[in-house]
């Protein structure tokens, strides 16, 4: 039976992705983050903690690098010997880039992380055995490991706080890897609603990720990249960033090289699904 499945679907089993491949249809979830709008307020990170039942590990473990912030705000400073280096801070909201050809997926010995038909990088907690190879191979280091059994650890969710846990999301036990899912519980909910109503998910705020929803400056936009009407699609197009290229040519129009849109570590060819818009500065601050 297995072997007949192999031969029947052989060409499907042999095709590669995403270069030269058809885009995901009808959904390809993607994001655009405008760093010019980001004020580094961390609201997205807090929203993520609330939405996805992230354990609050406490000061000590946080300092140790064991924090579980799926969405983290990184701070960078110019090191040019200026008088007040703190004033030049730049912020970078970093989350799983949901790569189309994710380095983490191939290396998992048990196949706990996969590419979904709607273009996400999924993580199966029940399947994970904790070899941590995915994180080792992740260029962005956005995968977080449950070093301890947080649900049973004191002060992670102190009494009453456990009442705010999101029932749509599992609480992870020790020894499994986890990471940003683009709020998959919301995505699936919206997709199923749309399907029962015989339509596609609308781009009118019907589906928002928690970080997007919480961002006070609307720096984050999220949506269906294959829908030409969606905001994300329009942003990607305007910046001439293509999903299936590991080097953006940007010569479709005049001045393309001045565009702000870029993806992080494109040269490693993971084809990330998040486009960042570079910060604009008038002068040295």
């Amino acid at each position, binding site marked *: 039976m297995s072997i007949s499945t192999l031969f029947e679907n052989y060409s499907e089993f042999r095709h590669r992705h995403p270069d030269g491949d058809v885009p995901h249809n009808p959904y390809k979830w993607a994001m655009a983050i405008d760093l010019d709008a980001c004020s580094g307020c961390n609201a997205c990170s807090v929203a993520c903690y609330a939405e996805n039942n992230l354990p609050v590990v406490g000061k000590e473990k946080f300092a140790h690098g064991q924090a579980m912030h799926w969405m983290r705000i990184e701070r960078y400073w110019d090191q040019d010997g200026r008088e007040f280096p703190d004033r030049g801070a730049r912020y970078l909201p970093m989350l799983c880039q949901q790569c189309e050809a994710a380095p983490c997926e*191939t290396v*998992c010995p048990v196949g706990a992380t996969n590419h979904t038909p709607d273009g996400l990088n999924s993580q199966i907690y029940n399947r994970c055995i904790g070899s941590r190879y995915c994180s080792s191979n992740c260029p*962005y*280091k956005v995968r977080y490991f449950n*070093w301890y059994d947080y649900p049973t650890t004191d002060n992670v969710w102190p009494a009453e706080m456990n009442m705010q846990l999101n029932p749509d999301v599992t609480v992870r036990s020790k020894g499994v890897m986890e990471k940003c899912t683009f709020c998959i519980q919301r995505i699936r909910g919206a997709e199923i609603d749309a399907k029962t109503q015989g339509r596609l998910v609308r781009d009118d705020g019907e589906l928002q990720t928690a970080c997007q929803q919480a961002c006070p400056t609307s720096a984050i936009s999220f949506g269906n990249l294959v829908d030409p009407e969606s905001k994300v699609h329009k942003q990607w197009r305007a910046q001439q960033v293509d999903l299936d290229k590991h080097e953006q040519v940007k010569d479709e129009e005049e001045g393309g090289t001045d565009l702000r849109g870029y993806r992080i570590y494109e040269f490693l060819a993971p084809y990330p699904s998040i486009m960042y818009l570079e910060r604009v500065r008038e002068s040295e601050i």
Partner: protein
Amino acid sequence: MKDIREDIAWAQINKDVLKSLENPRKLYWVILFIAIAMVGVAVGCEVYQYNVGLGVGNFDNPHMWGLYIATFIFWIGMSHSGTLLSAILHLMHADWRKPIYRFAEAMTTFSLMTAGLFVAVHLGRIWQIYFALPYPNMRQVWPNFQSPLLWDAMAIFTYLSSSILFLYIGMIPDLAICRDNMHSGWRRKLYTALALGWEGTDRQWRNFRMTYLTIACFLIPLAVSVHSIVASDFGMSQQPGWHITSFPPYFVAGALYSGCAAIITLFIILRYVFKFEEYMTMPILKKIVRLTFAISMVWTYLVWVEYATAWFGHNPHDQHLLLEKATGTYAPFWWMMNFCASVVPLILVFKRFQTNIPVLFAVSLLLNLGMWLERWMIVAPTFADGYYPWTWDHNQWPSLVQWGIVFGSFGWFTMLFMIFCKIFPSVSMYEVKEMVYHRSLATKKLQATGELAAAGKGAH
């Protein structure tokens, strides 16, 4: 310098080797006791880690892997020279391997077993380890065959089981000897069962020779593939310092190197503990030492190839990492590794040190210290200075739990090895007989043609 006497009586060989199964020196029990105590430390650490979680090892993001993976590679590497001695030298008809290959082969088996433990210890959910096994199940869920870790598992399983079979097949004639000489107790039952009714008939020997040769031929490419696959855990990733084309041969050379050094260490210990002075002779030790020196220079060359590729390859990430290794947090260990593994072996050039047991014992331990550090220096710095700037400047030191398990693994290996040597003949009796038989034949031939005086000491 005395080599094995060509005119030694075959019955004497049996007697001497069988004696090692009965009454070793007192040091044997001291070593065994220390080894078991070390295992106790590791078991304690593992129980603690199992109950509390991997965080007790002081791992964090980005330092996902630590001493466990480094020591895993170390033990896999140790296993390779058993195959070198037993298989490659067998095909090359190097008869000096015969008195020492049995314990080298046992070393292969037990270091693989130790390495296998690290795969388990390293996992976050050790109790789900069977997810990584390809077994048919109703859900049709299989492991991910694309993952180098799975290749590792497959390669190690193949290597371990083939090594055990090779060790066992090669031991059958000796087990028959033990059976014939032990007259009571559980040991006799054990040997009788394991000897499979071997009587040394022509039919048995004929098929034995073909089988032994065939498995030896299989083991050589297998050993090379095992460490290349371990190298592809790193080579097939995308990280700076890991994604290096020369890793497979570099790992294989390193494996042979640390294995040869370990053979020297164990040679010296066994020789004393089991009173094998008659069989594990100085000329043999000298040959292993020279082999080790040659391999150490191969390794030194390959490690410089690695540095040169990183430096000259003009990849800023690789260059940055190399600089960090030489000047950053890990610098003392990195320099110590280069010193121990590339400079210390130069001592072996001098003829008088090639048979000096105290010097060799110290040098062999230093070489393996260097090789262990080398594995650590492959694994850890990449996490500290990888691609992503956010992960830089974040230092981490393995906790005592990690060190304890690494420490205990040496005890585990020593324990298994010492128990093996007490229960099974660690010098191959029938092959030593073959060796002296063929040497004496060669000598006789020379005497007959009157060339003995011209040719010197005789064969080999």
